[in-house]
């Protein structure tokens, strides 16, 4: 949805696609066989033809779309709001009532899609007609609009008044029933559409056909995977993560938003002494899950230290810092990385294959944000394929999993109407105070700009 009204080739864009959908439904509502049964309705002393009750509309919607009462009332309400159906008894109240209140279909002449935006001139004529017919019949906002229009299009005011008189004269010659129907339709139209401010038009630049062709050619050559394999993976993923999805399966001890008890957050914080079982299990789902959890990352580092390959994780973290850090600091950061991890005889030398090492060293001559990407990728996959699976089989991990907590479900309060005190928590923004004093605080070894420790 945008304010631009023209498409790239200068053609008027289709505005509000919901209107087409509404109109399709309105048309099927008026189908002589499958639509709503229309009858004559009595309005004071006049008989209005082709009317229906609010209940008719709601029941038809329930049957047609297989939805509940509440939803059918809601959908029907939209038809009234957008002027496709109008109420007869209280025309100013654009509400659908699921009872015997009378409603009529608006004539297509007045549909939003055919007569949108509503023109100022038409509105002026309508208000003038009302004013002439009965002095003081205009209500407050109509009076304001009338005066504003009188000022704005003063130069055509004679035309407005002449048109208004002409239309009034013509309507007097109609049968009373027809006249009332036409007045209802017109009134309903204006209740929905007070003329809006005309939108500005924006010209868009066109995209050359050549780029599209090139893009399509590349797409044709792409390797695709069979749907069955891709879709199966979603089923597996959803199944695996379902116990971890609080909205699907709840969370222990309880969902803080429901019980006002923040135990769940406290038990899963970064500095907790003993993690929960679900949390530790999640580290085994994928290498990314392990690295994304600060605690998991620390545990993994401890394991790697035992294996004398901790430099791999440190190198990876340093590369992340280069990739996501300030542009101005890139050259100095890359230099640090070279000295610590890549230079011959470096204190924490990482084992990269010769081809990648050669390419990286060449790139270091002109350091840029992505210069360490290949080396980082190599080390990442090394850890993923080798160290990570071994970590999951290690005593360190198994031990932690065995000791991990399964929280008790919060017992429901004895007094269910007593609300727990909602305590505030320290704002992460406190870190700005400390970070300003110590410029390195944001980029410690184990963070890449994620939530700083308070």
């Amino acid at each position, binding site marked *: *949805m945008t304010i631009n009204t023209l498409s790239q080739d200068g053609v008027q864009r289709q505005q509000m696609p919901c209107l087409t959908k509404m109109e399709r439904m309105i048309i099927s509502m008026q189908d002589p066989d499958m639509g709503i049964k229309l009858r004559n309705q009595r309005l004071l002393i006049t008989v209005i033809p082709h009317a229906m009750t609010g209940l008719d509309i709601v029941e038809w919607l329930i049957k047609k779309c297989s939805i509940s009462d509440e939803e059918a009332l809601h959908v029907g309400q939209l038809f009234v709001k957008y002027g496709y159906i109008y109420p007869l008894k209280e025309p100013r109240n654009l509400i659908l009532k699921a009872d015997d209140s009378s409603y009529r279909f608006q004539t297509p002449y007045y549909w939003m899609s055919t007569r949108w935006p509503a023109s100022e001139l038409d509105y002026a004529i309508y208000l003038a007609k009302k004013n002439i017919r009965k002095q003081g019949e205009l209500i407050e906002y109509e009076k304001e609009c009338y005066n504003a229009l009188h000022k704005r299009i003063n130069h055509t005011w004679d035309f407005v008044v002449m048109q208004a008189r002409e239309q009034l004269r013509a309507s007097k010659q109609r049968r009373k029933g027809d006249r009332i129907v036409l007045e209802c339709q017109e009134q309903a139209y204006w209740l929905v559409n007070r003329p809006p401010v005309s939108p500005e038009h924006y010209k868009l630049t066109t995209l050359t056909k050549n780029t599209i062709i090139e893009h399509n050619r590349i797409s044709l050559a792409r390797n695709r995977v069979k749907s069955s394999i891709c*879709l*199966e993976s979603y089923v597996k993923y959803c199944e695996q993560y379902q116990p971890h999805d609080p909205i699907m399966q709840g969370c222990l001890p309880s969902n803080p938003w429901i019980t006002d008890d923040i135990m769940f957050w406290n038990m899963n914080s970064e500095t907790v002494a003993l993690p929960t079982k679900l949390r530790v299990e999640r580290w085994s789902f994928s290498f990314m899950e392990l690295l994304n959890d600060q605690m998991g990352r620390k545990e993994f580092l401890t394991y790697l230290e035992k294996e004398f390959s901790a430099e791999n994780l440190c190198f990876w973290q340093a590369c992340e810092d280069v990739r996501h850090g300030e542009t*101005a600091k890139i050259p100095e950061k890359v230099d640090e990385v070279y000295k610590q991890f890549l230079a011959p005889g470096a204190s924490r030398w990482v084992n990269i294959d010769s081809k990648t090492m050669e390419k990286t060293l060449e790139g270091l001559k002109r350091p840029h944000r992505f210069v360490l990407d290949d080396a980082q990728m190599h080390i990442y996959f090394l850890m993923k394929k080798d160290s990570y699976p071994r970590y999951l089989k290690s005593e360190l991990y198994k031990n932690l999993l065995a000791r991990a907590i399964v929280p008790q479900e919060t017992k429901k309060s004895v007094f269910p109407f007593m609300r727990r005190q909602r305590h505030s928590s320290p704002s*992460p923004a406190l870190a700005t105070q400390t970070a300003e004093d110590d410029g390195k605080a944001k980029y410690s070894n184990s963070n890449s700009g994620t939530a700083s420790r308070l």
Partner: protein
Amino acid sequence: MAAQPSDTLATLKTESETLKTKLEEERAKLHDVELHQVAEKTEALGQFVMKTRRTLKGHGNKVLCLDWCKDKRRIVSSSQDGKVIVWDAFTTNKEHAVTMPCTWVMACAYAPSGCAVACGGLDNKCSVYPLSLDKNENLAAKKKSVAMHTNYLSACCFTNSDMQILTSSGDGTCALWDVESGQMLQSFHGHAADVLCLDLAPSETGNTFVSGGCDKKSCVWDMRTGQCVQSFETHESDINSVRYYPSGDAFASGSDDATCRLYDLRADREVAIYSKESIIFGASSVDFSLSGRLLFGGYNDYTINVWDVLKGTRVSILFGHENRVSTLRVSPDGTAFCSGSWDHTLRIWA
């Protein structure tokens, strides 16, 4: 051989059309099963009860955008009257408020560190405000202008750190910016109309993002090269929102055509449509639950529809807002989701 201009355009048009048809054929070749068929063996979801647990009142006009803080309880929201508010949604307290010099602040984002927020809209810019707890400090004084577009800012988001911001704009482009220097690191051209939304991929290599626009297209971009690596054009109207499936292998989009659709990146095609006859109005924003089983959609008819992603059915419809739902995000730990609306409020549902 010199060609006539009219011939060239006509031949190009036919070539473009033929390629497009061929592409659809190629995509269809490997489509051997539908998602709901694969999901037949999955257990159906039971009765679904979600209620409004908090209502955040304080905006004086339409709420246009919201984002969660990584601490799982704070939220930043922006509105039509130019106000950007940071809330502790748990206590419903307002912690910071910034008044932007423009109206229609359509985009806002929380920095990963929780120490700053970014926002922008009709001013065509994206600005970063560091959050200070000093009550006397005027947040607007420390504002940093980062992005500059030639039309309105529709969406913004920080990448993995506080130092880079990704933006999308009504000028039809997306761009990656360095926050400290305000320098544009990469720009992304390919949409033929306003770009309305974007989302970063949660992949291991963290190098791609997806955008959706008024040209009915969604595009996947390589952040390093600026190239569009994949695009999809099956929606019938503007795409208002895009969001990755948690595994990063797919993304969902919500559109003015009243449908939400799921696109698989490896199969390179649309794999599911979430629609219902009684849903007539456009979807303004979508997000997945933590496991990816549920898709929440905020719609322009004031409701929120909850979809079973695997089976393709609608699980629940949530009423409560009194005007359009304009923005919707699930919290970082999946315990709740927040919806913002033109009725001036935000609601937390769980």
